[in-house]
């Protein structure tokens, strides 16, 4: 019993101790927040991920309720913090907006997500 336990735990520890692993990038939080209502129109949507992002294949778009694009161009990864993705916005009027992102972490794992936020009238 003890030998089996030692072997299994040692195997688990050996796997867990792998030094250079990177993984899927999940959305940690965003500004404006996911599902939030903001009193004034934001100038940009900023997202923070759980992993560093690969600039070439990471994208984000923002659309209004009619599906029109309201971002001003490609999303940018902060060079000082590669977990931060920012997409600048046109001047928004009150309404509900959808953020769609596609993240490629630096080891080529992809993840996608969508969320909305509302600008108050």
């Amino acid at each position, binding site marked *: *019993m003890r030998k*089996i*336990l030692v072997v*299994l*735990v040692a*195997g*688990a520890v050996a*796997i*867990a101790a*792998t030094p250079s*692993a*990177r*993984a*899927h990038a*999940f*959305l940690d*939080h*965003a500004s404006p*927040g*996911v*599902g*939030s209502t903001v009193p004034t129109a934001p100038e940009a949507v900023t997202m923070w991920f*759980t*992993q560093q992002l690969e600039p070439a*294949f990471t994208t984000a778009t923002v659309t209004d309720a009619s599906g029109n694009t309201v971002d001003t161009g490609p999303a940018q990864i902060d060079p000082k913090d590669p977990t931060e993705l920012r997409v600048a916005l046109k001047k928004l009027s009150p309404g509900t907006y959808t953020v769609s992102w596609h993240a*490629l972490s630096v*080891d*080529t*794992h*992809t*993840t*996608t*997500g*969508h*969320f909305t936020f509302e600008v108050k009238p």
Partner: protein
Amino acid sequence: MHPILYDWRCAQFALAAALTITQTDHALAHGFAGDRFFPATILTDDPFVADEISLPTFTLDPTASDGSREFGLGADLSQLITPNWDFTIGSQWQHIRSPGLPTVTGWGGLTTGTQYQLFINAPHEAMALAALDVTWANTGNPAVGAPDFTTLSPTFDFGKGFGDLPDSLPWLRPFALTGNLSLNFPTKTQSMGAQIPNSLFYGFAIQYSIPYLQGEVRDIGLGPPFNRMIPLVEFALTSPFNRGYSGTTTGTVQPGFIWAGQYFQVGAEMIIPTNSLSGHGIGGVVQLHFYLDDLFPRSIGRPISEWW
């Protein structure tokens, strides 16, 4: 630029792009269907192929109907052969105490399987696979119930996230359902003086993903560790249907949670028997599960077809 040099640079670019696309496709692994991440559930077979290992799984079963109590320590490995096809192998070391009898220990039967991903539908967060599992004869200690016959189990597993529900039902969107259906065909009709029936195994897991809630619906401000929690309830039932065993369905209900991190997940569930035939009292199970594609993305975390 010289045409040959230009062609060479184009070829380099095309090769780099092809490699990137290949790697990107492969990296869609361990339970993603669109925006949905399905964790590896403990009781219900997962509806996706993957490079993963459960090591270890501690199980203390409820007291069985004959009064015995079983403790198990198991390990399961799943390894991709191609991006849509994997094999699985697993076994469990068991320790059984029975009233008035000596304690017995040993390995249960070795189980192997092969699984093929039938589809992944990203917009509808749906996926399914077909599998053939085999529990092999004479690969464990008969004293702990390891069989002296092989059992073949064709299986269908599915998963469905509810993220495509209408916007009017936002709080239901983090729900997901996974399930499996299999038929067990033992290669013997009798063993040690007892009839061995064919049986139907069916199980499902209802889960509510806090990461999905906070990433897709509404950030309610939950921080670590709760922001990675997935509460769930699993059900599994086995119904023999011939050789005098009809109507003797047994099963368990297992409420619990899974905490899904970047490289591994931890799951813990209570085990509640569904009827007196399934036992009495309450057991429990705890599992540590690693995502090999995240831990070893350039070696064993890739399909075997991409190792060379």
